[in-house]
């Protein structure tokens, strides 16, 4: 028997911009959010590992966490701020799906806000009071990491549940108290782990760059960062290839088919993504062999390209899963050109001011 499928209708008000533009802004701002999120979550996971490994003295495994702790509150700020925009565009385009899945997991989704406030304060506590905490530092860091992992888990639940309208009606009529999650979905765990361990890989690469900038200033502690960061990036990318394949296998047959010739773009992305993954691992190993002086530019540019491919694949999964349920061509569109222009001008000016501000701080710090 076919399950009953209920999907809210699209909003009665027209979209204030063409669908392709909103899609583009969604993907673009999501990439930025992902970069910040990877630095934060991946950075904290690496930090946690380092804390466990460090002896508390002056070995590099101990000084690394202290350095990360200093920047993590600003990384939370960046992650949240850059997360707001994609969430806005997601709700604009996919509100019918996103609001529904959010309501089904109401408390879980709401918990993100409360948990985030605690996790955020956790990073400030480590940044401002880390040294005074003594033995409490480890448990605090562990708890903070668990809280951030929880937030990510809720996001994965929501973004995967929103792709399964066929599950909603039964879930809702069984229990409307907002206690559902998407735990029975085979793609949940690979999707989540791919995100989390992907974050660790990217954070490894960022650590490598950070180490290089330290070395350039004659700070020898950078060498350890370069080594650790490079190794983390390489090994975790390797793991991510496996996870990516698991994620692919966990897709329903009709979505898998899209990536196997069913749809040229999806198939091309899958192929490029896979090859790029292998190339990144090979480059990663080469980089390690070349030592501190190696040029990380090629691997970084390719890693960024890989992230873009992954985001586009994720979008292909979404389009494939929703299929005929999502028909943007039926949406009424009434572009608000003037407002779009105002936004664009403000955005450019805003980025300019932000860059100027950070530069002032950097220059002063250099002095």
């Amino acid at each position, binding site marked *: 028997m076919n399950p009953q499928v209920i999907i809210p209708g699209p909003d009665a008000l027209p979209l*204030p911009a063409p669908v392709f533009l909103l899609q583009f802004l969604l993907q673009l701002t999501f990439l930025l959010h992902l970069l910040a999120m990877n630095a934060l979550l991946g950075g904290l996971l690496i930090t946690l590992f380092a804390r466990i490994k460090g002896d508390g003295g002056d070995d590099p495994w101990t000084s690394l966490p202290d350095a990360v702790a200093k920047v993590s509150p600003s990384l939370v700020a960046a992650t949240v*701020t850059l997360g707001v925009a994609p969430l806005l565009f997601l709700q604009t385009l996919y509100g019918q799906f996103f609001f529904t899945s959010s309501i089904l997991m109401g408390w879980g989704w709401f918990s993100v806000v409360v948990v985030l406030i605690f996790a955020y304060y956790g990073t*400030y506590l480590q940044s401002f009071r880390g040294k005074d905490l003594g033995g409490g530092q480890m448990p605090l860091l562990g708890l903070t990491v668990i809280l951030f992992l929880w937030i990510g888990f809720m996001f994965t639940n929501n973004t995967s549940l929103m792709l399964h309208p066929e599950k909603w009606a039964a879930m809702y009529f069984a229990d409307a108290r907002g206690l559902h999650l998407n735990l029975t979905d085979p793609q949940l765990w690979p999707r989540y782990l791919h995100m989390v361990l992907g974050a660790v890989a990217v954070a490894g690469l960022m650590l490598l760059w950070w180490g290089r900038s330290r070395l350039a200033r004659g700070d020898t502690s950078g060498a350890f960062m370069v080594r650790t960061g490079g190794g983390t990036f390489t090994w975790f990318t390797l793991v991510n290839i496996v996870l990516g394949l698991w994620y692919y296998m966990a897709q329903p047959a009709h979505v898998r088919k899209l990536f196997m010739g069913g749809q040229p773009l999806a198939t091309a992305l899958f192929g490029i993504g896979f090859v790029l993954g292998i190339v990144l691992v090979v480059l990663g190993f080469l980089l390690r062999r070349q030592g501190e002086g190696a040029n990380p530019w090629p691997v970084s540019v390719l890693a960024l390209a890989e992230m873009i491919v992954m985001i586009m694949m994720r979008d292909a999964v979404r389009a494939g899963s929703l299929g005929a349920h999502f028909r943007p061509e039926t949406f009424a569109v009434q572009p608000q050109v003037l407002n779009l222009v105002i936004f664009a001008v403000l955005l450019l000016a805003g980025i300019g001011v932000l860059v100027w*501000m950070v530069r*002032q701080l950097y220059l002063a710090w250099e002095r």
Partner: protein
Amino acid sequence: MNYPVWELSMGAGILMAWVSILHVFVSHFAVGGGLWLVVTEMRARRTGDDRLLDFVKSHSRFFMLLTLVFGAISGVGIWTTIGLISPHGTSALIHGYVWGWAMEWVFFFLEIGAALVYYYGWKRLDARTHLAMGWIYFIAAFMSLVIINGIVTFMLTPGGWLENHEFWTGFFNPTYWPSAVIRTFMGLAIAGMFTLMTAAGLPRDAFRTRVIRWNAAWAFGGLVVVALAAKWYGASVAVWRDEEALLGAIPILPVVAGYFKWGIIVTALLALVPLLLPKVWNRGLVAVLLLCGLLTMGAGEWTREAGRKPFVIQKYMYSTGMLASQEDVVAEQGMAASAKWISPDAMDDPVRLGRDLYRAYCQPCHTRDGYNGLQPYLAHWDEETVSGLLPRLENIRALMPPWYGTDRENAALTSYLMTMKPQTKPDWPADPDAAAQLAFDVSCGLCHTPDGFRSLRDSFGGMTADEIDEFLDEAGDVDEGMPAYTGTEKQRKALIRYLEELGQEPQPAGETAAVPADSEGRQS
């Protein structure tokens, strides 16, 4: 209707209130406090006052920890919460105002970036650059208020937008400017309150006195402007200008508006204490001041929310998600067919149908026995009362969306509501006055007030108990909008007592002038 409804036993409104009141207090601090920081820093630098500069510096840490973390995240929290409890409203606001939100987002990231640079720049940046960061922060935070204010006021008074659906028409709506002034100066007042808190911990000397006076001036001055702007605001809301709502069409409105009014007066008087007697100022008084400020702000926001009833976006979309423009279609096809989330079992199971209808249409605002609970009423009603009221819901003075149930739907919802009726017999007050009041509240009082909205006093003037008794027998024939009287014998006796006394007592002084020309109420 279009979206599923999150079943929250505490009531969606309560969750919303918690999140939004806390957020609003801190977010206004984020704006006003930004100006305080930069102005006070300028003052300290100009006068070479190092202690004042240190005070600003230490306060900025508290400021950052409160506004960047709690303030910013609880703001995202409001968005999350409205998406859960009013997805249709959120979706409409996003569709109409995506570019507004996107512009706000630019100021949001600038604000956060500037706050971080300002804080981490204390030691490193030169004075001029540091002040520039402070100004950038304040301007970005203020612009964020300027934009959100447009969208929030739009929901209560969309004005010309209802005709043209044009972004800027809805944005600069009739309450835009008074609300912008209220919010700006409330921000300055809250900045004064929070800095009074930081200052209370200073060692007692001349410096402390000076700082406390300075901060108290912000708090008091801000509140005086808020009070004046609130008058202007009240006059800008058409429905309140007619005083119809304030006369009791929305019972909660005069109550919360009263809290707001008295809240401003009490908070302003409290803020006078540190201004006039800075020496007596201490941490205990700070706590009282902040609590008063928080509750006042909460009452203000609640007034605005209550004033919107029964709409999410005034005259455009009801709280249930029904569009005013859809009403004809809904009236034609019935409530179940108009709601998406009705279980297929409901087709042949009336109990299920009743439950699903309740969930889709009642639960967005009501709970069983909590906020806006139905049990306190159901305890005194029987099936006949409920089925008489259902088709007349839009007449209820709490202002509910209209109900277009078919006979089958009405019967199903009535039976479901009756399952919620408390099993034990309700307490009936022993005091005859209290009993009379209760009897009125659960019957006539649902749609009428003694003197204001659809007033009754004159109608019962000079009527005897017997005449009233007779009238109650025929109540259902008076007009279409009125159901038959179905109270128990005990309730009926108490109600007669109430109405008889009402007809005999003259109207309390001072309320005469407030009666609008058309006290018939809002049938249309």
